[in-house]
């Protein structure tokens, strides 16, 4: 009997789980599919235009950073996810130059200049959104006008006449979120704590609870943003930071629109992430010596 007798040396563990980071990013993008379908039904050409400009400029700036040497991958799935997510969070009718400039900030500055993938400090999508408020102050006005109407009555899960694509269907975002939880890409606790604390706080502050929680962008923040790499890595830290984000959103919702409150709340809480990562595992966690 002839057997293969020599093998190359290797360090344990000798088997690995069959998944990859790219696969996870693809699945995150897949979770946005229901929202895309609903938007294509109501705003076919406009949605395609937004997606085309954000994804095309995303890959353009990614390729530029690849040529400059601070991006490892020629085709980065995370860039696809970032620009795809971004196209759902900008107002319909945004001029193409504003999209390109915001995506430049998201992909080139916020993501690749900081080291890509897990190294960015501020959530690239929301950083780009914050910059869009500066590029296009009139878009903030349109949010304000829209919220003046929408807060007065409860819309439910389908609202075709909204300002941004994410708000068209909260149900579609929820479906995507359930898919993420089912595939264990996102722990169920973080969105739950985020939404529950948002509910409780907005009720205490006397705001319209359903009008805040059942909005597509809040749900996108719950499932895609507060669970991602810019939030603390510790699962307990993620819950803490999501509660902090909810507090900031409710406080800022007094004077700002909800769109701005979510954006600034997430970005402010991202700044606290290194602090939570540094001290949480040792100071506040019960350690068996």
């Amino acid at each position, binding site marked *: 009997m002839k057997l*293969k007798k020599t093998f190359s040396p290797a360090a344990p563990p000798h088997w690995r789980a069959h998944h990859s980071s790219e696969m996870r990013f693809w699945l995150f993008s897949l979770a946005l599919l229901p929202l895309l379908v609903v938007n294509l039904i109501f705003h076919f050409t406009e949605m395609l235009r937004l997606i085309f400009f954000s994804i095309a400029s995303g890959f353009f700036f990614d390729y530029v950073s690849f040529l400059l040497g601070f991006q490892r991958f020629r085709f980065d799935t995370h860039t696809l996810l970032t620009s795809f997510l971004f196209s759902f969070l900008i107002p319909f009718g945004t001029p193409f130059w504003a999209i390109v400039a915001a995506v430049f900030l998201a992909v080139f500055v916020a993501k690749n200049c900081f080291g890509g993938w897990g190294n960015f400090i501020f959530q690239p999508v929301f950083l780009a959104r914050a910059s869009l408020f500066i590029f296009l102050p009139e878009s903030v006005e349109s949010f304000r006008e829209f919220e003046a109407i929408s807060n007065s009555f409860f819309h439910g899960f389908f609202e075709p006449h909204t300002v941004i694509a994410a708000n068209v269907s909260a149900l579609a975002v929820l479906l995507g979120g359930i898919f993420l939880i089912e595939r264990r890409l996102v722990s169920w606790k973080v969105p739950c704590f985020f939404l529950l604390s948002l509910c409780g706080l907005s009720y205490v502050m006397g705001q319209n609870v359903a009008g805040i929680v059942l909005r597509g962008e809040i749900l996108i923040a719950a499932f895609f943003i507060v669970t991602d790499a810019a939030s603390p890595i510790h699962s307990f830290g993620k819950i803490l930071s999501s509660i902090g984000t909810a507090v900031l959103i409710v406080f800022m919702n007094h004077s700002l629109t909800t769109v701005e409150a979510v954006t600034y709340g997430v970005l402010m809480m991202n700044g606290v992430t290194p602090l939570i990562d540094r001290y949480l595992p040792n100071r506040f966690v019960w350690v068996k010596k």
Partner: protein
Amino acid sequence: MKIFRQDIRFDDYKDLSLSTITFKRASLPDEIQVYLQQHQGHPAIPVVHQGDHVEAGAVLAVAQGDFSAHVHSSISGKVSLATSEWIRVESDGSEDSGSFLKEVKSWRDVSREEILSGIFDAGIVGMGGEGFPAYFKIKNAEKKGSLLIINGCESEPFLTSDYFLMVSRATEIIYGAELLLKASGREKCIIAVEDNKLEAIELLLSKARALHVKNMEVKTLPARYPQGSEAELIRSLSRSKALGAGVPLIHNVATAFAVYEAVRYKKPLIERMVTVTGHCVVEPKNLWCRIGTPASHLVQNCKGFLRDPIRVIFGGPMSGLAITNLDTPIIKATRGIVALAPEFSGEGEEKPCTRCGLCLNVCPEELSPELLIRVIQKENGALAKEFRLSSCTECGNCTFICPSKIPIQKILKIGKTNLLHESFPQSFQAPVDGISQVVLG
């Protein structure tokens, strides 16, 4: 505290080697190679010369002090080569290895000292994989606690040798645990078994009842990796409030069986149960093997390879040692030989970390591997101490789960030696890999 605990769960493929009801004795090898340091501590000193004729069970090398163990020949034959590191014995073809056994008549009434000397004379070491000399372990743990744990967890995937031993030799294991209890002076004994080995639990419970043993309890623990490691075992038992005062003494079920044989029959540790398994082996099964048998001989006992494995592992795929040559002999602590099929290795290019947090969720010690890697890269010893790098048990969960294929465990091990200056006990594993190179070229 982890508010919600996430466990790592994978297919354990234990059913591969469970298809045969009884275990078989492996056929007689042409020659054995016995390494003189197949245990932690000091190597044994050879007492035979080249050309000597040895019987099965004869002492080949004597222990160098307490923190060491005797090494015996598992076949009868001629010593063809004897160096200070290993001894090769060529078989003379006589299969009989039971002639040297002599039963001690009143073995249940032997004194504590006699048990201890029996354990020492038989050269028993921890057979769960760590290879710590049993005599030294018992001596060291004297008057330090009240609990003895017999570890029958075997949480490593693929391996079933302890399970088979518990099913086929339950009475002997209980007697062995009783002897260990007497030798260590502990008050209570817990046999811990994972809940995927119901047959073994039932058998141990019914035998313990039938034999009227006192101070013994069979405890069912949830099946999850790494339940079999000492730290996790203690944690699980302390969670169910079964842990008494002091430090518990932990021995493997295979060690308990060896102790029983050593005390009752004066049989040295020359044989053990080894699982030969993996998707590449034609007939995976458990074999009762002589220590020193080359792995290739055991694979041939299982009708060879179906296809070429990507690697052959001594121990389980999570924490075992990949051998570079199939003629490497098995040692006292080898629990199994796993021929891993190429589709399981799941290796890929190393990618940057995405901070997904999976490594933190699966760490049984609740460490932060992602942070520790950064600390090690910056060579910050104080921070490594603060993030409890020293309590890493190298279970390999973080590396298994990492979607970016970062060799986390390797980096943590480098950090442990470089930053904490930990002197690891001389492991039996590395030299065995060395021996195959010495022997074969």
